[in-house]
């Protein structure tokens, strides 16, 4: 492979799914117009969703899903020892995502609600970064297909990826969408990290914050606007906690406790560079 006369190595890449819906991996397989090109610039070593061929000599590991069971912890640690670069992919991997909604209830209560007395193994919802060191966080629920390809290009070219620091609101305005706040909906676009190109407001549907917080977000101002529009703190809290994207952001309202249940220890939002193994 060669780019502007410079020889480039095909990175050896692997994809792994943990506790999640596999929608992020599917986004990659579903990019048919460029799938051939993508497969031409990377060497796929492990992609169980689409391939029976597997090898363990990969350099870049893409991890989808949260970590909830002990065997997943062991599997993830093993991947970390092999991977030179580990990318946590999607909201479940980076934030806990919707999996964290069950942390509103004690684990035993959640088990009882779904499985009754039948024994079932599960543990607390953990982000990938709660278990191993994460090198790159690719945000979104699901990840954005163009952003994934952009990231692969950066990795091949050896450029440190810089994700947008500004909020979804900027991209939304660039697309000349009608403002969904003005349409009477809750929208977290003003405080959520851009890079998705605002597909939800494009479909007249407010942003739910799946990509996590924008670096320079004015939470107070958004709260004022939402309250002015007549939304209760409960409604706002329900929305901001949906993907667990703003947990630890003090300005944002915390969900009321649910009956006898307690909120589990919050998964703190870590900004770039703060990940620890």
């Amino acid at each position, binding site marked *: 492979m060669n780019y502007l006369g410079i020889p480039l190595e095909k990175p050896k890449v692997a994809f792994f799914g943990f506790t999640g819906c596999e929608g992020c991996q*599917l986004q990659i397989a579903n990019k048919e117009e460029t799938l051939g090109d993508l497969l031409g610039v990377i060497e796929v070593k492990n992609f169980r*969703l*689409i391939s029976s061929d597997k090898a363990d000599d990969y350099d870049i590991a893409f991890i989808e899903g949260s970590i909830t069971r002990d065997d997943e912890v062991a599997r993830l640690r093993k991947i970390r020892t092999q991977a030179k670069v580990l990318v946590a992919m999607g909201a479940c991997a980076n934030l806990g995502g919707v999996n964290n909604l069950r942390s509103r209830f004690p684990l035993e209560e959640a088990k009882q609600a779904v*499985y009754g007395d*039948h024994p079932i193994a599960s543990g607390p919802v953990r982000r990938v970064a709660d278990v191993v060191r994460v090198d790159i966080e690719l945000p979104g629920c699901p990840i954005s297909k163009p952003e994934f390809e952009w990231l692969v290009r950066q990795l091949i070219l050896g450029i440190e990826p810089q994700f947008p620091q500004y909020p979804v609101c900027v991209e939304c305005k660039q697309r000349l969408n009608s403002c969904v706040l003005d349409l009477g909906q809750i929208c977290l676009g003003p405080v959520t990290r851009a890079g998705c190109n605002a*597909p939800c407001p494009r479909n007249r*549907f407010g942003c739910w914050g799946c990509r996590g917080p924008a670096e320079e977000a004015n939470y107070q101002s958004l709260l004022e606007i939402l309250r002015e529009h007549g939304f209760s703190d409960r409604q706002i809290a329900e929305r901001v906690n949906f993907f667990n994207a703003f947990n630890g952001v003090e300005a944002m309202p915390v969900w009321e406790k649910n009956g006898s249940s307690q909120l589990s220890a919050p998964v703190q939002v870590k900004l770039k560079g703060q990940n620890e193994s």
Partner: protein
Amino acid sequence: MKVKVEEPVKIEVEHIARVEGHGNIHIGIENGELTECSWEVVETPRFFEAMLRGLSIEMAPMLVSRICGICSISHALAGARAAERALGLEVPEISQKVRLLAKHAETLQSHTLHLFFLVAPDLLNVGSVIPVLGTHPEVIAMATRLKGYANEASNLFAGRTTQPMAIQVGGMTKLPRHSQLKPLLSELEAIIPTLWTALDLFKTLPLPAFERETEFVSLRGNGHYPFIGGDLVSSDGVQRGEDEYRVMTNEYLVEWSTSKLARLSRESFAVGALARFNNNYQWLHPQAKVAAGELGLAPPSYNPFHHNLAQLVECFHVVYESEEIIHELLEADWRQPSMAPLALKAGVGVSAIEAPRGILYHSLETDENGTIVSADCVIPTGQNHANIHHDLQAMVPLLAAEGMGKEMIGKRAQMLVRAYDPCISCSVH
């Protein structure tokens, strides 16, 4: 059953590839006897039914669509429709049409993904679609054209293929415009010849001959091939209304599966494309019937590998029916409300949807503030697990008796699991 193979055979497939989610196959043959033959579901549970409790009902479609990355349109629809039935909301007719178009786009996307990317490598004797890019570029070109259209149609009708946002409680957040429908219609018309070429390809790829008579459960057609709501039917003669779905599912737990299993009249039943084909053949689009005829597929088929052929037949149905619905939409006035206004009340709503992998049920119960009190989701693959297990137990001794070697038995067992297009993470949810 006595089998010919003398030396002990041990087949362990951990995390079978080219299926969605995590499952294992265990096969053991000793002294000519089958000592073990099982399908094991090891996916981690996510507890969606617990998560839903305490949420506002209008959040249901956004959450339940996260049950599955492949059939998220079906889950969003099932969640929205369960909420609408709990609240007594009437979805505007035009939005119902757009929903069916979104559903058809998902069915085409999911079926072509399965047929070309997950099944075809077995039939072409390779490990994945990646080598097929080099050896059979025309097959990949076909797949990308069909899937490309399906994804574009999903984007237009549902907002996105994976995790759609346009399907919400009350209707659709947005309707497609004439100026968007017309180019999509041209693209749809352009993929019809590709579909017939795909049919010619799959006619040449032989599927294993194995039959095990089983019960098939699906929505019951009534004037049309059903996808969204209506009565429930089994090939053993059970018929129920949508609200009585629990009569059809009878979920139970076993130690070898983190997914719940289901049964009705026998030890197991099957749902999915073949169940729909067998139960509702008469309502298929005439062109889909022609395609079935060319494939030699006629109801009832008891060969589980025919799930794949039925999927291809359904691709014809959804493409030809989409063409008709888009023509209707082009005649309709789109400047009308796409959503019924939300009015909260206490209630219970059940929704049955034919997801790509089979019949899917969501049930939501709300209090007078519209807060979800209890929820239940019964997933197609959860209903198929027991049938897969019993198919394996019936098929493996036959293969061993034929003198088939370990490697081929392992491969065939994986093909059998794959034929059902299982969505394992969905089934555990």
